[in-house]
C-alpha cells in the first residue's frame, strides 16, 4: 500500500531525514517512534506530499508521489501535528468544507459528515465554533477531518497529544478499530502507546531509521541473551563477589536496595539485573550458585527489555559514545548507579 524508498530530505542547517525505506501492506498499523526532532513529522509530511523529498521515491496505493500527486493525496487522510482547523467555523461547517475539498459528492456530504461525527464522538459540539472547543475536541475534529471520504491510508501525527487519559484510551481504541479498513501510520513518543496499537514499529533518531520490527521482534533483536532480575538477601559485597565468580554471566548491574516488607530483617535486600549469552537457562545456574554460597534468592524472574528500554538503548547509544552520559543518567538513574559498580566482565554496556 505504501512504499517508501531511500527517501531523504536535506535541510541546509538542521537535520532532515536520510535514506529511509520501508513498505506497508494494506491494513497494517505502523508506529513511528523517536524523540523530538528525530524526523517523524518530516517523514509523514513527505508521504502526504506536503513536502517533496530531496531524494528517493514514495508510492501510495501504486501511485508515484511525483507523477500523480493528486492521486496519492486522494488515498490519504492526514492529521498533522497541529490539527488544521479554522477557529471561526463550526465543526459541521468545517467538515462540510473538507468533504468538498476531498471531492465527496454533494448528496453524500451530509451522510459522510454524520458518519465521522459519530465515529469521533463529536455529536455534542457539532454546531460549536471550533475556536471555542477544548484541546481534546479540536484533536477529534482533526481526526474526523482525516477520516472523511474513507481514505485507504491514514497518517496521524501524534494523535493522542494533549488529550486526557480517558480520551487517550478512546482515541487509541478508535485507531485500532480503524485499522481493519485503513492502513495506518502514526507517530508517537509514548512507547506503551505504540506497543499497544501498532503491529510494526520503526524507531527513528536524528533523521535515520534505527530499527524496524514488531514490538516483540524488537525485544528479541536487542536482547539476544537472557536477562534475569533477582532479589537476594545478604551482604552486598558477598553477592557482588559471587556474581563475579560465575563465568556464564556477561554483565550484571545493581538494581538498588529493597526494604523487607515485614520488617523483621534489619538489613535490606538487594536487587540485580543479570544478563548472559549462555545457551542453558541462567536461572538454574544462579539458583545453584546462590544456594552453594548460602545466599537466599527471594525473587527471580526473567526480564526481557520493554519497548521503552529498547528505545532508549537504540537512540542513546550514540550519545553515550559521544560522552553525553549525564543526559541519559537523568532518565535512568538506576542504570548510572549500576555503572559505578559494573563488573569487570561487563562488555556490551548500554
Amino acid at each position, binding site marked *: 500500500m505504501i512504499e517508501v524508498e531511500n527517501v531523504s530530505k536535506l535541510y541546509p542547517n538542521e537535520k532532515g531525514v536520510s535514506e529511509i525505506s520501508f513498505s506497508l501492506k494494506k491494513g497494517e498499523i505502523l508506529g513511528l517512534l523517536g524523540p523530538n526532532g528525530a524526523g517523524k513529522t518530516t517523514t509523514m509530511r513527505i508521504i502526504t*506530499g*506536503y513536502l*517533496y523529498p530531496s531524494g528517493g521515491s514514495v508510492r501510495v496505493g501504486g501511485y508515484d508521489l511525483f507523477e500523480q500527486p493528486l*492521486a496519492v*493525496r486522494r488515498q490519504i487522510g492526514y492529521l498533522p501535528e*497541529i490539527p488544521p482547523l*479554522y*477557529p471561526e467555523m463550526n465543526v459541521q461547517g468545517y467538515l462540510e468544507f473538507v468533504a*468538498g*475539498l476531498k471531492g465527496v459528492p454533494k448528496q453524500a456530504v451530509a451522510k459522510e459528515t454524520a458518519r465521522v461525527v459519530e465515529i469521533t464522538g463529536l455529536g455534542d459540539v457539532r454546531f460549536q465554533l471550533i475556536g471555542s472547543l477544548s484541546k481534546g475536541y479540536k484533536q477529534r475534529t482533526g481526526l474526523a477531518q482525516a477520516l472523511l471520504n474513507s481514505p485507504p491510508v491514514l497518517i496521524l501525527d501524534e494523535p493522542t497529544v494533549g488529550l486526557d487519559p480517558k480520551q487517550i484510551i478512546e482515541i487509541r481504541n478508535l485507531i485500532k478499530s480503524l485499522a481493519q479498513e485503513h492502513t495506518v501510520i502514526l507517530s508517537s513518543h509514548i512507547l506503551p502507546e505504540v506497543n499497544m496499537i501498532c503491529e510494526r514499529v520503526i524507531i527513528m533518531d536524528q533523521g535515520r531509521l534505527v530499527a524496524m520490527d514488531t514490538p516483540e521482534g524488537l525485544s528479541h533483536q536487542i536482547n539476544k541473551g537472557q536477562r534475569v532480575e533477582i532479589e537476594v538477601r545478604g551482604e552486598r559485597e558477598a553477592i557482588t563477589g559471587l556474581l563475579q565468580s560465575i563465568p556464564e554471566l556477561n554483565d550484571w548491574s545493581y538494581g538498588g536496595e529493597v526494604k523487607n516488607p515485614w520488617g523483621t530483617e534489619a538489613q535490606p535486600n538487594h536487587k540485580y539485573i543479570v544478563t548472559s549469552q549462555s545457551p542453558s537457562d541462567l536461572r538454574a545456574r544462579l539458583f545453584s550458585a546462590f544456594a552453594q554460597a548460602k545466599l537466599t534468592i527471594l525473587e527471580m524472574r526473567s526480564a526481557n527489555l520493554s519497548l521503552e528500554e529498547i528505545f532508549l538503548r537504540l537512540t542513546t547509544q550514540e550519545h553515550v559514545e559521544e560522552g553525553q552520559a549525564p543526559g541519559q543518567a537523568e532518565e535512568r538513574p538506576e542504570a548510572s548507579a549500576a555503572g559505578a559498580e559494573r563488573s569487570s566482565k561487563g562488555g556490551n554496556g548500554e
Partner: protein
Amino acid sequence: MKGVMVIMRRELASYFLSPIAYAVTAVFILLYGLFFSGIVLGFGVANLEYTFSNMVVVLLFMAPLMTMRTLAEEKKTGVDELLMTAPISTGHFVFGKFFAVCVALLSMMALTVIHFLIVRHYAAPDWGPIVTSLFGLFLAGVSFLAVGIFTSSLTDNQIISALFSFGILLFFWLVDWMAEAVGGKTGELLGNLSLIKHYEDFNKGILDSSHIIFYLTMTAIFLFLTVRQLESRRWK
C-alpha cells in the same frame, strides 16, 4: 473546478466574518462619499469620473488589506498542511482564493450604486465614461488583489504581507514618474508598466483593449507566481 468553488465559498464566508472586511468597506465607502460630495458639490458637475480616478488610489491601499490574510494566516495556523495535502491542484486553490477576494471587491463596489442614483435623480450624466471608469476600477482592483495574494504567499505574517504589496503596488504606480525622468525608449517602457497610467483612458470613457490586456496580464503573472511560490514550499 469544484475545488475552486469549495475554496472560494469558504474564503468568502471567512472574509465576511472578519472585522477587516467591514473596516475596509467602511473606509472605502466613506472616502468614496467624501470625494463624491466634494466634487459634485464643489464643482457643481454631474460627474463621477473624478471620483473614480481618486478611488483607484484608495483601492491601492485597500487591496493589500483585503488579501493579506488569504494565504499568510493559513501558513501560520498550519491549515496549509490540510490544503496542500488535499486532492486539489495548487492552481485551483489559488484561483479559489483569488475569486473570493474579487467577489468581495465587487460587493464593496456594488455599494456605490447609491451615488449613481443620486446623480441620476438630480442631473443627466454621461453614462459612457461612468461605466468604463467603473469597469476600469474593477480591472485595476483585480490586479491589485493578485499582487496582494502573491505577497500573502511569501510570509506567514499578515502585516508583512500587506507591506510588501503596498511596496509593489506603489512601485508600479510611481514607475510613471521615473519614466518621465528617464525619458527615451526606457522611459516609454517604464511608463507602460504604470498601474495608474493604464487607468486614465478608462476614466475618459475609452475602452482600449491594450489596457484591459495590461491589467489581465498583471493579474495572470502574479497569480502564476503565487502558484509557483506555493509549490516551491514543498521543496523547502
